[in-house]
Structure formats: structure tokens, C-alpha cells
């Protein structure tokens, strides 16, 4: 188990570094001059040149690369070109804001998806309805679901705020958007796992022993759903923490995704790099946490075939 973990951590670190290097190189190819973005009305070339010298943009790419990654290994993400403060101090509050949304979104997914999956397994009559709901939700992009919810609950029913911001009232619609879009995947896992364990010898034995249905359902059937659901939750938390860009844009939720979009437009390279790296770390870390948790609840997954 320890070997599996070390292997996974090593691969994770390689993947994060790969993403960081790729993002760094890509950003240098993006046309546009950060100095010009900082001082859009600067008239003289000397002013622009000064800015470039200040930001070390005049040095060769390889030196900038070494500088950046040297600092990165010391845990320093640099200073924002535009906001004149450390990237870490910019990202951390945004990460927390996105974290709340990610958490609320995953809770919504689990509730909606779990309900759909359990319903379609236990009640044959609603199976076709659940399949249709799943297919519809799968076919819609996140931002379309978000906008339709905004139209219905915000503009028509006046039940939700339409102005954006991060508060308890503002979180409902974005979280519901994430929940609805993610639900079919959970419904699928739940239905699959339940069908598998319902067809298994141990459930047959339990029925033969005369255990009550409710007991069988909770102790034997739903317990099996836990392990793949944990993997899924880990993947989703990681992916959402790396910025639910479209949902944040639709609802004006001031999270890390919105920060990344703004910084891209401002050519604020250190902040873009920071958000990309933090995002990749979130993806890798949560996948890993999910795997460890899974090994804990499901002994069968402890030995991974290399």
C-alpha cells in the first residue's frame, strides 16, 4: 500500500510540474506585452522599457524560467504585475471562496445523483424517467444550466439574487448548477454498484437468512456504492477547486476561476501561473486523498496492480 502511495505521489508531482512548465511556456508565446498592459497609455518607449526591467522581462526566457521555478520550489508564487501584491495573498481568499462553492456543489451532486440512482434501481417504473433526466442533464453545458436557473429563479420568480457576489444567498444557484450537471455521473455509479451487489451471492445469502430488506439495503448494498463515490467526489472537488470558470463567470462568483480569467485578460502572468499551478495541485491532491480514503473503506482496492 505504501509503495502504491509513493508511486502515486511521484506521478502526481510530475504531472503538476508538467502542467506548470507547459503553462509557463504557453504564456510566453501569448502575443501581447505585459508592460503595455500595465501602462496602456504610456507614450515613451523608455517607460515601457523601465517596466520590463522592473519585472525582469528583459532577461532571456531561460533565465526567467530558472528564476520562476527556483522561487516556486521555495513556495513563492511571485508578485502580481497588476495588483502589486503577492500572488499567494491574491489566490488564497479566492481559493476559499471557490472552496465553498465546490463543497456545496459536490453536496448537491451527491444528493441529486444519489436520489436518481437509488430511485431508478429500486423502482422499475421510474427508470425510464430517470434515464431521460440523466440524458438531458448530460447534454447541457454548465453555463446553459446556470443561465436557465438564473432566468427561472432570478428573473421570473425573484427567489434568488441576480447580481453576483459570494454569500449564503448567492451560493444556491451556482451550487445547484454544479449539482445538476454532475448528478448523472453519480446516478450512474449508484445504479451500477447497486445492481452489481443486488446480483451478488452475499445479498442472496442475506435474503436467505431472512434479514430485513432495509438492513440489506443499508449494510450490504449501499455500502458498496461508497467506494466509487469517494473516488468521484475526490475528482470533482479537485476539478472544481481548480476553478469552475464558467459557473463563476455566469454567476459573478468571485472565485479562483474568475481571478484567472481576469488575469489572462490583463496579461498578469504570475497570477495566471499561480492559478494554474494551484488548480493542478488541487486536482492531484484530491485524487490522492480520495484514493487513500477509498483504500480505507474498501479493503479490495488496497493492492493496485502496477
Amino acid at each position, binding site marked *: 500500500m505504501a509503495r502504491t502511495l509513493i508511486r502515486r505521489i511521484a506521478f502526481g508531482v510530475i504531472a503538476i510540474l508538467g502542467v506548470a512548465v507547459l503553462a509557463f511556456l504557453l504564456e510566453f508565446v501569448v502575443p*501581447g506585452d505585459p508592460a503595455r498592459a500595465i501602462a496602456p497609455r504610456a507614450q515613451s518607449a523608455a517607460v515601457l522599457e523601465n517596466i520590463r526591467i522592473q519585472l525582469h522581462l528583459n532577461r532571456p526566457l531561460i533565465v526567467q524560467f530558472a528564476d520562476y521555478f527556483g522561487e516556486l520550489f521555495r513556495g513563492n508564487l511571485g508578485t502580481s504585475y497588476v495588483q502589486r501584491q503577492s500572488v499567494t495573498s491574491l489566490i488564497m481568499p479566492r481559493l476559499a471562496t471557490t472552496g465553498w462553492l465546490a463543497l456545496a456543489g459536490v453536496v448537491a451532486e451527491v444528493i441529486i445523483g444519489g436520489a436518481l440512482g437509488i430511485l431508478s434501481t*429500486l423502482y422499475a417504473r421510474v427508470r425510464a424517467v430517470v434515464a431521460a433526466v440523466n*440524458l438531458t442533464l448530460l447534454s447541457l453545458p454548465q453555463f446553459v444550466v446556470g*443561465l436557465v436557473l438564473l432566468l427561472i429563479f432570478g428573473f421570473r420568480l425573484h427567489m434568488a439574487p441576480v447580481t453576483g457576489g459570494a454569500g449564503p444567498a448567492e451560493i444556491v444557484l451556482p451550487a445547484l448548477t454544479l449539482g445538476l450537471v454532475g448528478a*448523472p455521473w453519480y446516478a450512474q455509479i449508484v445504479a451500477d454498484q447497486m445492481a452489481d451487489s443486488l446480483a451478488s451471492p452475499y445479498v442472496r445469502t442475506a435474503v436467505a437468512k431472512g434479514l430485513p*430488506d432495509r438492513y440489506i439495503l443499508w449494510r450490504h448494498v449501499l455500502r458498496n456504492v461508497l467506494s466509487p463515490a469517494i473516488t468521484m467526489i475526490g475528482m470533482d472537488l479537485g476539478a472544481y477547486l481548480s476553478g469552475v470558470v464558467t459557473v463563476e463567470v455566469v454567476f459573478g462568483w468571485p472565485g479562483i476561476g474568475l481571478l484567472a480569467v481576469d488575469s489572462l485578460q490583463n496579461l498578469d502572468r504570475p497570477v495566471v501561473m499561480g492559478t494554474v499551478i494551484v488548480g493542478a495541485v488541487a486536482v*492531484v491532491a484530491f485524487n490522492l486523498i480520495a484514493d487513500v480514503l477509498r483504500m480505507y473503506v474498501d479493503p479490495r482496492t488496497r493492492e493496485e496492480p502496477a
Partner: protein
Amino acid sequence: MTTTTASGVPVPGQPATGRAKARDQSLRKARWPPALIAGTGLLVVFTAIAIAAPVFGNPLHQNLLSGLTPSGLPLGLSWAHPLGTDALGRSELARLAYGIRTSMIVAVVSNVTSIAVGAAVGLAAGFFRGPVEAVLMRITDVGLALPYTLAALVIAGLMTAGLTRVIVIITALFWAYPARLVYGEVLRLRHRGFVESAEAMGASGTSIATRHLAPHMFPLLVTYSPLNAASAVVFEATLSYLGAGINPPTASLGNMISDGQSALSYAPHLLLVPAVAILLITMSFLLLGEGLKARNPDLKRVSWLGR
């Protein structure tokens, strides 16, 4: 086949022979599963709309005299303008037809490119073991760990707006998953008899990969491609919505929705019309995928419509 207890918990019933027989029957019945018919039918309709887009009118013509209300707001649904007009007085029907054309082109082209790249990488990694395998699969891991939307926005900054940009972005982000799929399949097959006998006969690595292994990838990739196409349609819309795909005045379902968002309070049809189009296009690809899976018992497990 399965009996049910009082509360509705199904209980496993028949032994294997009965099950195999039932599968046989369901296969015969499933030759043209309803999902396949529905998906194919819808796709034929959308392809026809995409080809015949000019019939629905000029998507760029701003009808400033009769295309807007006297106070300058977009028109609702009427006989003269079946789907109303947008905020600039352009026919929403014409824009919809061209938006569908954009989506269909993106779906087909980026589907082919991303799967081709992914299959090549997966095949190479699975077949040439050692350093090639390690390097290719680590690159694939990076591809899978990329924050999609952000990466897309960065790449978008490198190129000018348009179809090519969308297709390049989708290919750059969508190849990793099919690469993983193909890699897994090659791992499963590379110790099978037919590969080993080809090796024993002295076939070269490339020949084994292309002539013996590649044909086995077809069922997998054919079944995967409708799902890939559906994701591509969704992603194109997302990119264009964020201004990183196809920019106005060229119509795309995504940038039409972006336009519709600013008119959400007074002209909801500008959101709903393109939204329904995206829903139906994506759904038809998913139905096609479901139908193909229903015909292939190995893949039926991963079906969205139940087993």
C-alpha cells in the same frame, strides 16, 4: 427473470444458462435499438440544417426597420420572424441555422482529429514499452490533469478567433482520454496469441501496431466517438460563450447565448432558442452512442440508459 421482494428490492434469480439465453434474445431485439434510431434521425436533421443553413436567411443582416420594436428591443416569436430577432435586429432563425452549422463542423472535425491523435499516442505507448511508454503516458497524465477551461483560455490567446482555433483547442485538450482508452486496450491485447504469433513470425513493431492491434481499437473508438463529439459541441459552446472560441458576428450557439445573457430579463428566447439547439445536438450524439453500446454487449455496462 429476477424476482422482487415486498419492498421492491430485486433478488438475483436464474443461473447462468438462463441469463445467456436472455442476452441472446435481447441482442437480437436490440439490432436497431430505439436510442440508435432516435440519435441517427436527429443527427440527419441537424446535418441537413447545417448544409442548408443559407435557406434560413442571412445571419448577419440587421433589419433595423422591422427587426426591432419601436423602442429598439428584440422581437419575440412571430410569422415574419419565426424565432424572433436578436438585440441587433438579426433573424434568430438564420443565426440558429448557422450556429448549428458551426457546431456540427466542430463536432465532426475535432472528433476525428482528437481521436486520431489520442489513438496514435495510446497505440505507440502501449506497444513500444520502456521509455517511450513512460514518456507518452506521463504526458497523457499531464493532459488529463490540465485545468480544461483555463488551458483553453491560454491557448485561445495564441490564435485568432474562428473555427480553426476551436478545433485546435479541442484537439489539444481532448486527445488524452482516448489515448488512455487505447493504451488500456493495447495492454489488454499485447500478450494475446495473435500478437505473440505475429512477433514470432518476425513482424516488425510498426506492422504489429498498425496491422494487428489498430483494427481492434475500432469498436472501442467508434463507440467512444459520439460521446467525444457531444463533449466537443458542449466545449465549443463554452469557449464561444467565454469569448475564446468563435467571435461575433459569426454565429455560434455559444456566442448567441452570450448575447442572450444580456437580454435575459426582457428577451429570454435569445437564451432558450440556442440552449434547446445545444441540448438536442448533444443529446442526439449521446443517443447515438447509447445505441452503439446497446449493440455491443461488452460496452453495455457503461450505458446511460440502464442495462
